[in-house]
């Protein structure tokens, strides 16, 4: 049982709206919107949190109030016309049925969006200043624009009320239009909307006054804002406190949702959505400071990944509601588990940032370690019992194997899990050795604890043989044997070592090292960082356009920051073509992918990452004896049906994760979940 749990489980009443506890999820954009509406997928995603006991779930991060703030780039929600109201009503009903409250965020993105999408209108801002993150150059708003946007907010809040949402917040954070007016870094106007802080606050005040007029005094309207923009020409902490005090003092807002930083460029974006390289709750001091100055409830999110931290934040009076948004993506049943005394069963967010990173490249938010999130229509968060108990052998206790064992055990099957190492976790154990990536180890730690708790027969330190597997007389055998480093096609690849070798400590390079990356993931960047920290002179080269190209927007800047700080040479657009020894050193031949010009490096080590190849020896050995010849029924997996060999005499043989083909942790978990939930 965590300390101060009772502080979290105390209701909060705002203007007659009673939220059942102090745990919430902030508005965000999971990319589940469809045609600008929150449809079934979006609603089920939030309903799952409501089922899981959350007090308040806020959806629709950056929901647009006007047609020149396009919702399309984010697969987000447009509140710019009445057609959204029935969806809101349906959504409210779904969430209210499980006792939670539902609110939305309303905003105009201003310059923080694209002009070349949806309606192709110019983007707006108080002044003509390019936003680095969106690479957009806006037009400066005139009086008509201001009047129109103010009215758009008022119309939008009316739609929220008619949609039976419990309230809304407007966004004055992350560099949206309202805080573009506040921030001297964007607002260089000389009229009554620019200059003094009083003038810069005017636009937001007009918006809130118009909104209040539209829905009356009792509807809950809050505001999200920064407690410190943390840039030289931006809003200082004192400015933010003054803004909060002014808006709250005028009775315009019923709550303030405080965060730290802003998001105008890559690095500040990564800071405002702190990943696992940050400490837990790094900006809690900001809401705490503002809470002392205002009389409205204070909400706060930013890497509050565990309930103990959340409980401390509330119990010590730093905030009134603690937002655990990514924590709910990892485990939507967090509060329920707390209330049921099952806090050990909570799957804790590790801060991988996989969810948020996917949406900034136009994808949908998915959890690195929970394949059911965002797939509530097809994937269960609570695994139902099977009608028939079977014997399942899982080989390999990496994330895929652990998930397969977990799901099968939850189904009520008898599960035997083999792992050749003395510790479960597979490749995650290697990845977690890289400096700030350590928190990844939380993924197998939770899975292993669940598997152990569910009574799986775990055999560590045992490399399964065909005889071992057959001795269990299984109905199902799942190969989760993972991968091994792919040496790649490069001539002389035998002279190179893998990123695994470095991270696992098999080799300890010194001197100058070339790290060559053909994956674009975390592996090579992490390895380069580790080597540079150990004193190596490191060059990180890649075929891709940029370093760590596949790594998302909250993680890549951290990799780059660390590599730059360490003086690592970063060389994109370069292909490794040959390695050969020269004396006791190595020569690596590189070819520029644009010019085809070749260069050579004389170095002490070459470290390559070409991903993995499946470990499939046992699979091939068992394939002939299985009823399905090792085949997987893909249609059945997608349709949520049992594999077509289920129930036949003998055993069926399947593969999941990198044993099937090298991908990532989420892929391994998703393979396992969707295969096993129907076994």
């Amino acid at each position, binding site marked *: 049982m965590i300390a101060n749990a009772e502080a979290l489980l105390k209701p909060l009443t705002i203007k007659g709206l009673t939220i059942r506890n102090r745990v919430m999820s902030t508005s965000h954009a999971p990319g589940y919107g469809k045609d600008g509406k929150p449809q079934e997928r979006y609603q089920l995603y939030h309903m799952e949190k409501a089922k899981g006991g959350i007090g308040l779930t806020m959806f629709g991060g950056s929901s647009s109030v006007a047609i020149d703030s396009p919702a399309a780039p984010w697969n987000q929600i447009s509140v710019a016309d009445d057609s959204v109201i029935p969806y809101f009503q349906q959504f409210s009903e779904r969430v209210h049925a499980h006792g939670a409250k539902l609110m939305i965020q309303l905003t105009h993105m201003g310059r923080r969006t694209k002009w070349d999408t949806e309606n192709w209108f110019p983007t707006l801002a108080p002044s003509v200043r390019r936003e680095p993150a969106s690479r957009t150059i806006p037009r400066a708003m005139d009086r008509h624009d201001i009047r129109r946007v103010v009215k758009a907010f008022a119309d939008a809040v009316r739609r929220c009320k008619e949609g039976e949402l419990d309230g809304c917040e407007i966004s004055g954070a992350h560099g949206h239009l309202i805080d573009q007016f506040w921030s001297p870094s964007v607002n260089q106007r000389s009229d009554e909307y620019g200059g003094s802080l009083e003038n810069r606050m005017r636009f937001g005040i007009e918006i809130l006054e118009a909104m209040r007029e539209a829905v009356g005094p009792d509807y809950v309207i809050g505001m999200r804002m920064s407690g410190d923009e943390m840039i030289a020409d931006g809003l200082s902490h004192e400015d933010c406190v003054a803004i909060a005090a002014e808006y709250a003092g005028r009775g315009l807002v019923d709550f303030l949702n405080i965060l730290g930083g802003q998001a105008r460029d890559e690095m500040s974006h990564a800071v405002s959505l702190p990943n696992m390289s940050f400490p837990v709750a790094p900006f809690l001091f900001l809401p705490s400071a503002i809470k002392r100055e205002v009389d409205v409830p204070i909400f706060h999110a930013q890497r509050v990944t565990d309930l103990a931290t959340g409980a401390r934040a509330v119990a010590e009076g730093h905030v009134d509601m603690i937002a655990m948004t990514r924590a709910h993506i990892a485990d939507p049943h967090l509060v329920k588990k707390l*209330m049921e005394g099952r806090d050990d069963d909570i799957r804790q967010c590790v801060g991988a940032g996989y969810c948020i990173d996917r949406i900034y490249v136009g994808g949908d938010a998915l959890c690195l370690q929970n394949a059911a999130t965002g797939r509530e229509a097809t994937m269960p968060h609570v695994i139902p019992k099977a009608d028939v108990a079977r014997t399942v052998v899982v080989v390999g206790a990496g994330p895929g194997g652990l998930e397969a064992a977990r799901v099968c055990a939850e189904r009520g099957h008898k599960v035997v899990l083999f792992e050749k190492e003395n510790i479960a976790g597979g490749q995650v154990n290697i990845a977690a050795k890289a400096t700030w990536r350590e928190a990844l180890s939380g993924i197998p730690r939770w899975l292993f604890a669940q598997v152990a708790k569910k009574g799986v027969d775990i055999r560590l330190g045992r490399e399964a043989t065909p005889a071992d597997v057959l001795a269990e007389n299984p109905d199902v055998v799942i190969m989760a044997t993972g991968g091994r480093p792919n040496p790649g096609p490069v001539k002389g690849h035998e002279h190179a070592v893998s990123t695994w070798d470095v991270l696992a400590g098999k080799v300890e390079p010194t001197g100058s090292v070339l790290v060559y990356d053909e994956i674009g993931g975390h592996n090579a960047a992490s390895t380069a960082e580790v080597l540079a920290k150990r004193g190596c002179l490191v060059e990180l080269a890649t075929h891709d356009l940029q370093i760590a190209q596949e790594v998302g927007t909250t993680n890549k800047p951290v990799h780059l920051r660390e590599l730059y700080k360490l003086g690592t040479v970063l060389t994109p657009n370069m292909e490794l073509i040959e390695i050969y020894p020269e004396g006791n050193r190595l020569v690596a031949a590189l070819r520029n992918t644009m010019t085809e010009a070749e260069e050579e490096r004389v170095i002490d080590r070459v470290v390559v990452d070409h991903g993995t190849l499946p470990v499939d020896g046992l699979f091939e050995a068992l394939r002939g004896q299985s009823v399905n010849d090792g085949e997987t029924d893909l249609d059945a997996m997608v349709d949520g049906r049992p594999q077509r060999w289920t129930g036949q005499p003998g055993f069926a043989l399947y593969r999941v994760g990198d044993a099937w083909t090298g991908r990532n942790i989420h892929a391994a978990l998703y393979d396992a979940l969707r295969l096993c939930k129907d076994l």
Partner: protein
Amino acid sequence: MTPIMNPATPAAFCLSLVILSLAGLALALMARRARLWCAGRPVPVEWARGLRALPKRYLVDVHHVVGRDPYAARMHALAAGGLLGGSGLALLALIPALGGARLYWALIALAFAGALAGGVMVGRRRYPARPARLSGGRFQILPLLLTFYAAGGFLVAFDAALGGALPALAWPALALAIAGGLGLVLQIDRGPMRHAFAGAAHLVVHPRPGRFEGERATALAPLDLDAPRLGVATPADFAFNRLVGFDACIQCGRCETACPAFAAGQPLNPKRLIQDLAAALQPNATNATYKGSPYPNARAVAGIGGPDLPLVGAGAMIHPDTLWSCTTCRACVEECPMMIEHVDAIIDLRRHQTLELGALPAKASPPLMELRYADEPGGRALAARTDFAAGLTLPLILATGRADVLLWLGEGAYELRYGRTLRALVTLLQMAGVDFAVLGPEERDCGDLARRLGDEATFQRLAAENIATLARYSFSRILTADPHALHALRNEYRAFGGAYEVIHHTAFLDGLLAGGRLTVGALHEARVTYHDPCYLGRYNGEIDAPRRLLDRLGLARLEMERAGKRSMCCGGGGGAPVSDIEGERRIPDIRMAQAAATGAGIVAVACPQCSAMLDGVTGERPEVHDIAELVLMAVEAGSAKAARKDAAGKDVAGKDAARKDAARPPEPVA
């Protein structure tokens, strides 16, 4: 010789005379002991009622308890029956018409033969190895004295019945009877035989006569807060009939076997406590004669006392840790064949410690302080009592002024663990359409903790304030999931003018199920064992409704060895969790091991204390669920099953609807 001067044999005649003189001696010793009882406070006693009821109290109520150990029951019937019968008949043999009849002596011989058999049984129980619960010392020679007296009596009577055919045997036998009989009589005031006359007297003047008239009679007696002395400091502060009760103890040790604190190695042994209280009545008393099991991990005391000397303290008879180890579970009382009221004695002693000396264990003071200032032992806001229900509709009686059922939430409402139980209960009440309401911020602590910790003043204040609050509202009965609150409201508020019909949630839910207001699916897989809360089972006699309810859920119910009114405490009562007296083991660990031994996967509980104590047990163990949680699970299992049946029919339509979702604005969902 004339028939008048013609007893069966001279030895037999002498036996009668010996018994007559022994009876005289016994009476003198009894009187000496009884005079000490007069040191106690006078209390009104219904002598006539007690005397009239004595035979029934002895033959029915006492033997009901004794009979739980069939060997002991047979042993006692033979020994006591034979001894009293043989001696009484032999005494009557002084009437010549009887004393001259050989057949009469045969009858006497038969009675002594019974006594002899009883004596042998007493011996076989104690030799070669004495069970730990039985006392040694004087008790260990008891079988010898019994068999001597009974054998001697038997031989004399047998000889007389044969008309003096065994003269060589008769006189030595008489000597044997004299030795044994004198030995027995000398045990009357300070030895094992005291139980016989003190026990009989106790049955007549028993402080809780209701116990013999079908009542549970477990409410504590109110303390007069204006009395010159609060609680009990010395033996003389006890009412005289309570002193009689202590003297009735036969040191059978059934209480010590039942005592959870004793089992946990805490310094409490109810038998020793009663013996210390009895010993202290003697002027210049010491505790040296006691030869039973000690207080486990006994704290050092001087072991001296007297009628007007303090009972509690390192310089007295009883160490305070002994008092504070008690969970007030009444297991000792339930087991006592002499109907002694151990818990009442402990509470009286605690009252003095708390109210006059302020001498509580360190961790027990803060909750009492909070109760005085905040009406709640955790010092939390009364309004926060309903926090557990956030998200549920919890009607306040303040809004309507009336409800059919007033739900008393109790202290558990503040606890995360127990909030789950109350949520389940509230959900069930709503499903069943029960017209209920809560006091919400007007509910003060019921005062149970204060009362058990001896703070009678705080209890009486809380009781008065709660009674005043309840008087403002109209309801037909009070429902609670907390047996401690149930006991206070049902039994203890009565003395302060609050008379309510109070029902425990297990009985209430049982009624809802029986009346068809809730429908349950079966929870097939689970094997469950039910742990009786002391304040529900022993204090209030409710052991059937919870079991009936569990059986309705389709659970395989297993019984622990100690169950029902003889159940073992979880360790949570009487303020024991806050007194926190160190022992060797934790009581809940012991109880949980008993539960696990049944093979059940679930321990069903029905009390917030039990759920907190048992759920606090670490390691591999059965799950702990309040019965309300199990009922809700079963109701949900039932509705899930119904829904599956429903869905099976509508599957195709459902998929169609999902496909249309994207194309047109949705219909509101049900």
